[in-house]
């Protein structure tokens, strides 16, 4: 086969052997997202078995796995430079000074999502002049009640309006308020071609935790949302507020290990303060004080959960922490783990607009900046597609341009 040395394979086009590429390059490219186990895909196992792959099929495969095909054409040395660059960007953004999450919520952090958000954040920061976000660090050194006031005033949140809504609408209300104050909230989406829909990827995403990436002008919060349908809405609200307290305290106490498992720094007290502020915002102490003389039953817990938009578990844990209920009452009231309602049959609802999916994944601020770049022509179409879809997707982009009025 054209003098092929071991450890190499041919790229064939028009029945001709065109380019000799390195097996290790293929493996290393596929290992950019090891959690997705791309190397096990039939196309690549066949290629390793046969010693060649078809260029035309490679292009199709790369569309599915959302990796630029050109990466497979790099020499080992050049690929290493690219991988080092990606790794450096990931480490820079996800060191202890820049990254935080809720402890115990999802151990895995999808590298693909990390890379997408880094790319988006870098694009915005490198191409637009932003002003510092005054909420960053605004909760430092303040009492819980002061934190509540700062939070509600800064984001202009009307607690009565928030509580009057159904939980899902209350979540949307919070996101709307927070995003208008230059906090970018990116949410997991499985529609609109925004993330790849390949085998086993959904399981990876399902375990991806919510997290926040520091920036003094435009902090980026990621919430798994649709990627993890097992998460109760009340828990999503709690996670969102918890991550905002990290921004407000300017306290980023997680880091990614080499395996990209998120680990907490060994620091005492930080986590308790964040939970304290979060519950002070969502479930004020005045409200729990009213229950000190009462006998709290499961029905009360359900009512409090519905009123304050947190899970029944969070209600019970908070009551216990504040000494409203005893250990025995706590154990009795603690509800079984949340079981999501199974969807009955195929959902035949209208498919969401592509712009809706993109806006949800990118976050409102990043979405606006990307669109500004597209409109002004400063952002080339291929770059724009990589920012919003993570790969070239001409049909989706055509619809997207139409939907944003281009």
């Amino acid at each position, binding site marked *: 086969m054209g003098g092929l040395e071991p450890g190499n394979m041919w*790229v064939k*086009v*028009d029945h*001709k*052997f*065109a*380019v000799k*590429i390195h097996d290790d390059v293929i493996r290393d490219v596929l290992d950019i997202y090891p959690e997705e186990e791309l190397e096990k895909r039939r196309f690549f196992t066949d290629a390793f078995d046969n010693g060649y792959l078809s*260029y035309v099929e490679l292009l199709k495969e790369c569309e599915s796995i959302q990796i*630029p095909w*050109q*990466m497979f*054409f*790099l*020499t080992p040395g*050049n690929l290493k*430079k*690219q991988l080092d*660059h*990606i790794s450096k*960007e990931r480490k820079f953004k996800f060191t202890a000074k820049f990254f935080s999450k809720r402890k115990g919520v999802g151990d895995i952090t999808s590298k693909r999502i990390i890379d997408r958000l880094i*790319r988006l954040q*870098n*694009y915005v920061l490198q191409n637009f002049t932003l002003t510092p976000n005054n909420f960053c660090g605004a909760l430092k050194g303040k009492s819980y009640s002061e934190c509540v006031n700062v939070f509600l005033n800064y984001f202009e949140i009307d607690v009565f309006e928030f509580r009057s809504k159904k939980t899902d609408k209350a979540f949307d209300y919070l996101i709307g308020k927070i995003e208008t104050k230059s906090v970018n909230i990116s949410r997991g989406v499985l529609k609109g071609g925004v993330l790849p829909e390949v085998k086993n990827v959904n399981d990876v995403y399902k375990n991806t935790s919510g997290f926040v990436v520091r920036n003094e002008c435009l902090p980026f919060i990621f919430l798994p949302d649709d990627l993890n349908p097992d998460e109760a809405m009340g828990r999503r609200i709690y996670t969102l507020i918890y991550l905002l307290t990290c921004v407000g305290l300017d306290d980023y106490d997680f880091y990614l290990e080499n395996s990209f498992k998120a680990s907490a720094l060994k620091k005492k007290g930080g986590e308790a303060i964040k939970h304290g502020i979060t519950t002070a915002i969502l479930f004020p102490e005045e409200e729990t004080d009213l229950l000190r003389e009462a006998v709290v039953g499961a029905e009360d817990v359900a009512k409090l959960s519905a009123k304050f938009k947190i899970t029944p578990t969070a209600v019970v844990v908070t009551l216990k922490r504040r000494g409203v209920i005893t250990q025995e009452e706590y154990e009795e009231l603690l509800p079984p783990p949340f079981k999501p309602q199974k969807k009955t049959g195929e959902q035949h609802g209208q498919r969401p607009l592509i712009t809706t999916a993109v806006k949800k994944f990118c976050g409102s601020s990043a979405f606006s900046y990307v669109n500004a770049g*597209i409109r002004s022509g400063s952002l*080339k*179409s*291929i*770059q724009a*597609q*990589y920012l919003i879809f993570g790969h*070239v997707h*001409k049909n989706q*982009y*055509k619809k997207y*341009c*139409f939907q944003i009025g*281009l």
Partner: protein
Amino acid sequence: MKLLDSSAISYILERNISPKSEYFITPDIAQEMEVAELVYNRGVSKNIKNITVQSGFDEAVYLNNYYSVLNKYSKRSFFNMSGFGDVSLVALTITLLQHEAQNTRLPLPGFDNDILVYTNDDHLKSKIISETKNMVKVSNNFYEIQ
């Protein structure tokens, strides 16, 4: 033979020009052009053709050159996904000169004439001149495109 880069394509679309003579582009430029057509909401003339799908064009040789150029120059970014149009055009000019040198005639219009690349990108210009040892002309006189 006349080749176009993405800046020339934008020029054509912005001015709604319908070239009468034939021009060739690479797959990377074609991909950018397809999206630009959407943005400008108009198609370019059928006289602008993706060269790799023309009969007689040896895509295997082109891909081999693409591999070499991709690995030779650092001014392309996988993070921003930029610079690949340049890689493809340099690879194409090298491929066309190889066809000429080997006397493997391509049944394409203008193949017997000089190769002329339209671009206003100075980096691309210098790469083409250096890789082809000045055997390919590069022009930013877009007004000549007609």
